[in-house]
């Protein structure tokens, strides 16, 4: 059990960091893009919202497994499989939590509209400059929300983890799996303590960020 706590935090932290790098540009493309591909891509990203996590875990297991379509690519990297590994779990978590990151950020970009973007371009800012120094700060609320939701969602993911990661202690046995195993073996007090700890922690994270956001908003007004 003790190893599961840092492991879970590491998984959630790493996934959230990757989601920021991947999800923010993706959300920008979706918010600014025109054409049929925008909605198609949006639908693919939203899929984890409606698919049962076990279905998602099943496909990821096949995709990242020793006989999956990515196997030759993995062989190049000297790997046999990513199934039942921590790296595999990170990839799975990123896929599962992608809509939680992309949705709020995309909404924030859409709400900002093209007006500040155009104004920045006419003020000698190159596109990357306008994005980093105008668009990202203006979308900060949406980005923070996306990061909190992704982090919290990864903390609590169960079905996908079980399918893709199994429960190898120290490698893939995250807290939600530990709680499940505790209940299975009738260790109710341990399960209760962990569940309560996760509930309090999640509540604390959300409360602190919301308060920080409110304080920033007051400062700006």
């Amino acid at each position: 059990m003790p190893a599961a706590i840092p492991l879970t935090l590491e998984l959630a932290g790493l996934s959230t960091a990757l989601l920021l790098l991947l999800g923010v540009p993706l959300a920008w493309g979706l918010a600014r893009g025109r054409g049929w591909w925008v909605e198609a891509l949006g639908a693919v990203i939203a899929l984890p919202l409606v698919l049962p996590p076990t279905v998602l875990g099943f496909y990821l297991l096949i995709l990242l497994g020793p006989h999956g379509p990515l196997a030759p690519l993995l062989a190049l990297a000297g790997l046999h499989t990513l199934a039942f590994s921590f790296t595999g779990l990170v990839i799975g978590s990123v896929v599962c939590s992608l809509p939680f990151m992309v949705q709020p950020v995309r909404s924030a970009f859409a709400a900002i509209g093209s007006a500040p973007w155009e104004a920045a371009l006419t003020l000698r800012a190159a596109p990357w400059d306008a994005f980093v120094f105008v668009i990202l700060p203006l979308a900060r609320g949406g980005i923070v929300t996306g990061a909190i939701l992704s982090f919290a969602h990864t903390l609590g993911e169960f079905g996908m983890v079980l399918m893709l990661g199994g429960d190898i202690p120290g490698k893939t046995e995250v807290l939600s799996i530990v709680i499940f195993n505790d209940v299975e073996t009738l260790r109710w007090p341990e399960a209760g303590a962990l569940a309560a700890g996760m509930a309090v922690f999640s509540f604390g994270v959300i409360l602190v960020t919301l308060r920080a956001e409110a304080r920033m908003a007051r400062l700006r007004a």
Partner: protein
Amino acid sequence: MAFEAPSAGITGLFGPSGCGKTTLLRCLAGLLRLPGAALRVDGEIWQEGPIFLPPHRRALGMVFQEARLFAHLSVRENLRFGLRRAKGAPRITDAAVIDALGLEPLLARAPAGLSGGERQRVAIGRALLAQPRLLLLDEPLAALDREAAQQILPRLREVSRLFAVPAVYVSHDLAEIEQIADYLLLMRPGGRIAARGELGALLTDPALPFAARRDAAMVLELRAQAYDEIYDLTTCAGAGVALTVPGWHGPAGAAVRLRVRASDVSIAKTEPWDSSILNALPARILSAETAAGPHVNLVLAVGQTRLLSSITRKSFDSLGLAVGGMVYAQVKAMALAAPG
């Protein structure tokens, strides 16, 4: 569509809503790429054939209908946004802009707390500090109330002259153009340039729709000559016209721009001597524009310049006026009170 505009002063781009004024301005800014268009500013190619300079490589400043200030930055940081990104030593300094637009008391504030007029002043300052060689103004006063707009209009003219930045001013409000522009591009629906030239000449050109308008007006560029302290009146003259104007308009030689409404100019056949009208100018009738309605607009030659006079058709007939005839144009001095 092909046109040239002078690289000094303010060019008014006027036309009905939806005729493509804003589209044209966005092409100038590089926010829109019109295939096959060619564009040079000050001899520098901005677009021609395969060459297309993106907006941030064009030495321009743009002010939009909404101020578009960056909400996460203070007024001071907004002003410095373009300044920090412009290359070379700044020709237009922040101190000079802050002074010219009266921005000092706003610097530490957030854009969200500013009034519409204040925001637009900051937006103008921000655009100027990007060190533009061309200032693009897309109906910058359309969202403001009349009073705020009237405070900003003369300042816009002033900063364009002060910092030697030519400007293109888009508006569908002819009164604004009459107050601010030196040069006029008239746009027709479909994006054609119907006429271009000096503002004063176009406004009084019988071939164009302006002179026949019921609210027609013209613009005179005069110089102050003498100030009468007792009656608070200034004599202004230029191009063969001398007018008495209420108020102080600067020392002798100062440029005075007067907007004269055609309805404030009346006609007498003989020189009036027992009238309250101070300004009676001998004039020749160049044309009489009759549109539907009760009025006739006369285009008058006074000295080397032209005036418009709007009178009733009844007066026109009963005075027996005719094109080519000599008359006296009477300009009510108090109607010249509004500056701009």
